């Protein structure tokens, strides 16, 4: 039977109705408007391990959100586009990139690693009234009203690892620590000093090394000479954790190791052994951890996110792979409350309540005592340890606010001694 003229007219009429009124335009694949979010981070250079995997994570997040219909604001659906700029962890490049993202790309928020790259940007960010985020709350001060630390409260969460260590291994009485001499390493030193003091673990050696160090044999020799029960790697760069751990194994160390991060730990295991790395404590879980499926976790479907990420970018997962996406989650939450993507509206919406949904559970806006402004989102943080099978697993979620309530004076004392309080920074 052939197609009649009437059939063609029916089909045409049905198509016209569907495309015009029957379904929302986004459901038919019509082009939606795009909101741009900026990532000004080290994508190359020494610190790229804490930038590039973040970009990969953000791209995955944006693809997931866009595939689910985008972000609905003011009755309209928007796609999210991540616009990145490689600041190489250089202050001048960071300012250049920040200006480009804000002035040329028109982004609605800028995510940064912070640290050395923030101070040069601060004045311009204030002038532009741009919502900006950092992973390092030590960038916060009363002069940074538009800067949030909504995910990582580095290095304060390190207290939870030391607290867990002291409870699980009460026989540990001495620690030797090394740290690179930069804005990541020194605040972390102060935090670990406070945490070990509270835990009554005596610090027997501290070696602060240059970030350009290539040979860690002498540093490890120096640390092990004091025969510590615990070796603390502070917030050493991801590659440094690898090299120091290998050196410790080669020089016969058999005690506990605690570190802020342990990115790509399978590579370290391949150079040492599962036995050596068994019990290595750090603060960043793999997102295939079953404990992340608990109800209080706000990160959307972490196990699937991890699986998709590993498939898309094998061997690149680091701490920042989920951190920048979790900031995007929070931004989406704020934008939807504000019903607007405008930076100041989102900021106001986020700060309208004393708490907000952090990746690891509801957390409170906090930080006035340490940074002069309550712009850091602080709550629970996981303590992770590598098990005998060579897999990192969450041991517990430690409460940073509870530790702070008991020991704030100790932390402030060490922060001040290291000149890390906001009023001591230039």
């Amino acid at each position, binding site marked *: 039977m052939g197609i009649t003229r009437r059939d063609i007219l029916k089909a045409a009429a049905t198509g016209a109705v569907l495309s015009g009124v029957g379904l929302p335009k986004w459901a038919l694949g019509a082009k939606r408007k795009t909101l741009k979010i900026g990532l000004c981070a080290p*994508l190359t250079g020494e610190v790229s391990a804490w930038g590039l995997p973040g970009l990969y994570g953000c791209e995955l997040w944006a693809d997931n959100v866009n595939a689910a219909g985008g972000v609905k604001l003011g009755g309209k659906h928007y796609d999210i586009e991540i616009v990145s700029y490689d600041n190489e962890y250089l202050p001048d490049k960071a300012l250049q990139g920040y200006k480009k993202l804000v002035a040329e790309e028109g982004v609605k928020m800028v995510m940064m690693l912070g640290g050395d790259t923030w101070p040069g940007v601060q004045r311009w960010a204030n002038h532009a009234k741009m919502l900006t985020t950092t992973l390092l709350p030590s960038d916060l001060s009363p002069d940074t009203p538009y800067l949030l630390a909504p995910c990582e409260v580095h290095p304060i969460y390190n207290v939870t690892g030391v607290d867990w260590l002291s409870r699980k291994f009460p026989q540990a009485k001495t620690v030797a620590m090394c740290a690179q001499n930069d804005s990541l390493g020194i605040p972390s030193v102060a935090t670990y000093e406070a945490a070990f003091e509270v835990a009554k673990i005596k610090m027997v050696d*501290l070696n602060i*090394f240059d970030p*350009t160090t290539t040979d860690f044999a002498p540093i490890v020799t120096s640390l092990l000479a004091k025969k510590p029960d615990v070796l603390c790697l502070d917030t050493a760069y991801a590659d440094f954790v690898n090299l120091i751990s*290998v050196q410790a194994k080669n020089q016969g160390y058999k005690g506990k190791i605690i570190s802020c991060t342990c*990115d790509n730990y399978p590579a370290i295991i391949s150079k040492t052994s599962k036995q050596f790395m068994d019990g290595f404590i750090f603060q960043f879980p793999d997102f295939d951890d079953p404990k992340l499926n608990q109800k209080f976790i706000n990160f959307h479907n972490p196990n699937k996110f991890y699986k998709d990420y590993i498939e898309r970018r094998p061997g*690149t997962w680091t701490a920042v792979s989920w951190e920048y996406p979790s900031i995007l989650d929070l931004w989406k939450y704020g934008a939807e409350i504000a019903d607007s993507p405008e930076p100041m509206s989102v900021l106001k919406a986020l700060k309208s309540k004393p708490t907000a949904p952090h990746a690891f559970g509801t957390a409170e806006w906090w930080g006035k005592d340490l940074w002069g402004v309550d712009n850091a989102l602080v709550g629970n943080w996981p303590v992770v340890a590598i098990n005998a099978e060579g897999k990192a697993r969450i041991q517990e979620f430690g409460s940073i606010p509870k530790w702070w309530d008991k020991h704030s004076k100790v932390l402030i004392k060490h922060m001040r001694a290291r000149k890390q309080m906001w009023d001591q920074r230039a």
Partner: protein
Amino acid sequence: MLEGNVVAVQCTSSALYRPFALYLLFVHLLRHKETSVDLILQTAVNSMVASSFFALMAVGLVLIFGVMGIVNFAHGELYMVGAYSVWFLYSANGWPFWLAVIGAFVIVTLIGLLMERTLFRPMRGNPLGGLINSIGVLFILQVLAVQLGGVGLMKTVIPPFPGSTTILNGVSISDQRIAALIVAIGLLVAMWLFLTRTRLGWALRAVSQDSEAAALQGININRISMLAMGLGAGTAGLAGALISPMTRVEPYMGHGVIITAFIVTIVGGIGSLSGAVLVAVLYGFFYTFVTTYVSGTVAMMLGLLIMLFVLIVKPNGLIGVRASE
């Protein structure tokens, strides 16, 4: 808080001008007087490994400068290419480690020869032009490494000799370091024999001392330049290849190494091979002991201070080329 921490942290670059910096160093060393023999021996073993690699890097730099009059800023990147070659051949493609090391030597030597023929030879007599060309090569090699290997975490080169050997009670060294040390020392000895016992080696040294006089004696300057560049690049590549299982293999790994190589070369006397080897050994011990007993930051600062001091007081270096060779 440890008193030693204060020393380490306060010695930032601004402390360069503090008159008590050296005093603080000695106070700190004295504080370690309870140090054990084990610690000294372990540090000495670490120093030997560091010295041998400093020497390998510096000798190549000196060879290139001595013969061609060019400060090769891309020397650190040749070292990086050596390490990357081992990662690519051994880790990614399963070649035997030593075959990968030889492969790295060949690759980097060929890059050196290409640099000599296309970039440095046309700039002969123009040290500034050669220097700028070498900076260009530096960036090209870095970008190539980024394009081929990506950025992010360092490349994993699993040590082919994963164990450790206890030399004395409390003094241990990884088998990988022992192997690298033996090969590095062997290479330096082989190079010394080549330079002092063979006609080609004599010709190379002759060109290094006075190229015009050497040419008048019938020595082919082009050929010797290629030899110097090939050898210099090859040793840098070998250093990178040997150390790749023990260091951070990433596109910018040449930065720190080239600073050390310059310190050694300048203090030893630019163009002086014996000076470079001597200072590499001394500096290796100095750097490692200061890093162990004080901090790496102080070690690097003092190294640069020594270089500045030598440049002011004895610009030709400890064994300046004009004076001795």
